[in-house]
């Protein structure tokens, strides 16, 4: 196992070379999304779409089911690192003590399928090339999976000769090949088709010079069945699992053709299709389509519905990463301070208290109504932190009280009345207001790091990598490794600022997107930091209300052509994980609430809590994206 200075910088599963290393870093809890489908008996002989934004762990999820990974796991199933994962896969009947029961066949879709649409041939012919390329590649991937499943049975060059494929070809899908045939013969047949189609895409010569073979059907999924294969007398896995990764790279027409085929033939094979949210139609992205005709796992949604589990996944991932560091810091979570260092921050806290008291003196100078409340603060006995928080709470309560229409006489309010109002729901706002000038940290501790990740593993690794780097620097400089709250907040905010600066480089329609997000952030801030803190959890999201005017045709904004630019910007924000959607029922109506990704909460100094959102008028939102 290689060791890395900062293993948190090692990102996507594809970059972790060996199966053993991958398994060691993988958290079995991630499989829960599939285990639930298995319990519902929807995991096998079914079509499952796996959706998420980049970095949520789609490819890693699929990699677990590849034959190389499963064989490695099987060989070391009693090792401490692998026991849980083995157990999880055994429960899904993917493996058992006798071997691998599922042959995972992975095919990564590349851009060259989409390029077929640019060929100078009819649409029908383009579809035929698409099917033939996909058929050829699925067959090649299946043969490769066999070879990877039995790596020691023969040398690789001869491994294909050990495979026998016996299909009756009753549907005449195959030309120029007779059955039974060896794996090598089937490989050459598929390889020739692939090469011709690929040459058609890449060559400067016209299609007529190359004459590639086209197929009328996507038959490979149907004709690749365990019963048609033998491998040197060895046990053949009882299930084949086709895993098509990165399907967002297909053209919309190709995606529809693929979906139509697999949904129609559902039940005859197991296929998982992973794609980024950006592939979905904008209207699909904002969640307006109901009753999909396939099973779906949306990874971010899955975790956001199970936050405690997600935290466990991240603890697990962080510990596994730290364990392979070459720099002798073998833990992560325990080096993130979870509490404010009150002694170190005492001067800041005291200053905060006195500034707030001065402000209170100023706003209450024409009334005696709050004299007891202010006295309560002054005489409060507790640590500086407790006193600072209480001061902020009282400040909020005074603002709330002052905003009410006063029908009562201006008699001083009693301490009992104050204590009655000092409820826990003031906690979020008071802590946030306390940290507004950033001298007292608000974002710190492992739980906040989890929240800042917005249910995206790559985002978590991005934040953690810089935290771990700071730990390494501390260790190297002879300082304590542990990161205090101020340092953690500084790192998180710096990352958020850099991500914001990078937006023009990474997001399409960036000018509109940045303007839109900036405006949302500004509005959320305005609502969150109202002195009377009307939204106890802060505001970090919005729901769209269709504009109502006399010309309105009562259509939802999604169906209105006029709002297409808004739909595109929203869809882009969701696809690039800048906004998260949550369904919320309010007033008997189901709303799609768009929350800022939590790193944007860092940027706009908003709390990480979900729950605070406002209605926004579709017309106003449309104005926000105009440049």
């Amino acid at each position, binding site marked *: 196992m290689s060791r890395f200075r900062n293993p948190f910088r090692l990102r996507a599963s594809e970059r972790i070379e060996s199966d053993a290393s991958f398994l060691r870093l993988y958290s079995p809890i991630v499989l829960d999304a599939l285990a639930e489908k298995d319990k519902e008996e929807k995991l096998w002989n079914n079509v499952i779409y796996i959706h998420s934004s980049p970095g949520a762990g789609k490819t890693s999820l699929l990699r677990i089911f590849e034959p190389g990974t499963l064989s490695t796991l099987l060989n070391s199933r009693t090792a401490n690192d692998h026991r849980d994962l083995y157990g999880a896969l055994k429960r899904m009947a993917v493996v058992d003590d006798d071997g691998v029961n599922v042959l995972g066949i992975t095919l990564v879709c590349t851009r060259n399928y989409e390029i077929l649409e640019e060929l100078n041939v009819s649409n029908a012919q383009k579809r035929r090339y698409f099917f033939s390329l996909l058929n050829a590649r699925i067959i090649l991937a299946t043969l490769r999976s066999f070879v990877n499943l039995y790596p020691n049975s023969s040398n690789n060059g001869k491994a294909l000769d050990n495979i026998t494929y016996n299909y009756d070809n009753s549907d005449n899908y195959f030309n120029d090949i007779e059955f039974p045939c060896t794996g090598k013969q089937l490989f050459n047949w598929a390889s020739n088709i*692939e090469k011709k189609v690929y040459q058609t895409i890449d060559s400067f010569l016209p299609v007529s010079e190359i004459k590639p073979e086209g197929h009328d059907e996507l038959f490979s999924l149907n004709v690749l069945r365990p019963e048609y294969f033998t491998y040197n007398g060895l046990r053949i896995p009882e299930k084949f699992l086709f895993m098509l990764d990165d399907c967002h790279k297909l053209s919309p027409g190709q995606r529809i053709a693929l979906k139509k085929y697999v949904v129609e033939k559902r039940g005859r094979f197991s296929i998982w299709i992973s794609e980024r949210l950006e592939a979905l139609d904008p209207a699909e992205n904002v969640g307006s389509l109901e009753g999909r005709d396939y099973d779906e796992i949306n990874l971010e949604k899955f975790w956001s519905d199970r936050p405690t589990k997600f935290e466990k996944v991240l603890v697990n991932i962080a510990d596994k990463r730290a364990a392979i560091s070459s720099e002798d810091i073998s833990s992560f979570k325990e080096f993130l301070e979870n509490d404010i260092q009150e002694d170190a921050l005492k001067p800041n806290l005291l200053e905060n208290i006195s500034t707030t008291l001065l402000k209170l003196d100023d706003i209450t100078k024409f009334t005696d109504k709050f004299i007891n409340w202010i006295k309560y603060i002054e005489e409060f006995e507790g640590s500086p932190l407790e006193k600072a928080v209480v001061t902020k709470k009282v400040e909020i309560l005074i603002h709330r009280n002052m905003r009410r229409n006063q029908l009562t006489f201006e008699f001083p309010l009693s301490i009992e009345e104050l204590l009655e109002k000092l409820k826990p729901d003031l906690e979020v706002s008071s802590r946030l207001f306390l940290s507004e000038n950033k001298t007292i940290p608000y974002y710190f501790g492992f739980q906040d790091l989890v929240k800042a990740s917005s249910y995206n593993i790559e985002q978590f690794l991005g934040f953690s990598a810089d935290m771990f780097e700071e730990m390494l620097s501390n260790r190297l400089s002879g300082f304590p490794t542990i990161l205090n709250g101020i340092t953690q907040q500084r790192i998180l905010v710096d990352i958020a600022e850099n991500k914001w600066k990078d937006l023009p480089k990474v997001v399409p329609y960036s000018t509109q997107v940045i303007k839109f997000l900036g405006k949302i952030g500004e509005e959320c801030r305005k609502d969150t930091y109202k002195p009377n803190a009307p939204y106890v959890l802060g505001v970090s999201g919005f729901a769209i209300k269709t504009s109502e005017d006399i010309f309105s045709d009562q259509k939802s904004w999604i169906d209105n052509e006029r709002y297409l630019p808004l739909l595109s910007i929203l869809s882009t924000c969701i696809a690039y994980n800048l906004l998260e959607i949550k369904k919320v029922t309010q007033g008997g109506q189901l709303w799609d609430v768009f929350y800022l990704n939590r790193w944007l909460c860092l940027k706009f100094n908003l709390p990480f809590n979900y729950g605070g959102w406002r209605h926004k008028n579709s017309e106003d939102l449309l104005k926000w994206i105009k440049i």
Partner: protein
Amino acid sequence: MDKNLNTLRWDPYVFANDQKVLELWTNHFSESNRKVLFILGRGFDVRMNIGIEGLMENCPEIDLDCWLIQFDEGSSSSSHKYEKYAEENFKQLESILEGHTMEIKTISLWSAKGKGKRSRIGDRQAAAILEKFEQIENYTDIIIDISALPRGVYFSLIGKFLKTIDFYCTDRSINLMISVAENAAIDSKILEKEVDDDIGYLQGFGGNLELTSEMDEPTIWFPILGEDKIKHLGKAFSHIMPDEICPILPFPSKDPRRSDSLIIDYHKWLFDELNIQPQNLMYVPEQNPFDAYVRMTKAIRNFYNSLSSLNGCKVVISTFSSKVLSIATLLTAYELMEDIGVGVLNVDSQGYEIDDFEELKNLRENSELFVIWLTGEPYDENTKL
């Protein structure tokens, strides 16, 4: 592969820069039987007309036709705000070419992919402007000026011209030259926006990289590093998923510390994220694409020969540096196209941001013109000097 490591198509080569370009053109085009096709792109870049201006000033009697490639970047491109500068360049070109034929070839950089989505097709559209050999057979010389053309366009364009000339010119060859006006100060002031997510190998330079039947061969990636390209590099890496990376740094370079600065800039990415071994770093001269091509071609052949007992390897070259160096990658990929699968992966941006356009105009005069001569008389056995 049996080819001798030292057998290279463009060695020796013809290359000129700065004042020598104008000397070369003046001498070469003084012959009366020359008929020239000059191809350039219409854009806002202040360097767009430097090549054609130099040629027309020094060879006023030249028999020349022009193809102007105009690209449709789509309605949402941030480059639209610079349209007035593109129009200024166009007007200047019209006056330079007074009395000559100018044909406008419009290509789309994008193809609609659904509501609000699109995919890049500029490479295929650019290559398609040359449909048949008959379009160019009457020209003795073709100059493709890439100063205002994006990488995603000129690679396949040059590739198509090279392939067509190689394939059809059996009795005599057409002189094919690439010209480019370089200016690092201008480059640094044109900031790229919205790095493409939709990336892939350029048409004609796929190098069989995406053939699943050959995916067992290890992939070696040679990225030529340039400033402020971390997002581009990240996207390219995720697409290629190479088994081995040999980052290429520009050295010797005008700024002798440039390669050191690049290592500092990319230290985290190179050594922490990708765990690259320092011995994998390569250096190529910044100002001479042919020297760079020789070094890259030899390195790739070496790699391939060393790995031949393990079924060889596939190679991807990407350029994140100057256009002059990008020509080196083009030549390398073209040279090795038949022998080794060498692909060219390009990562473009969807728009540009310029703070002060007037400043760019002031910098224009300091641009340096380069000419890279690819086919024709110098390489013809009968006329070789």
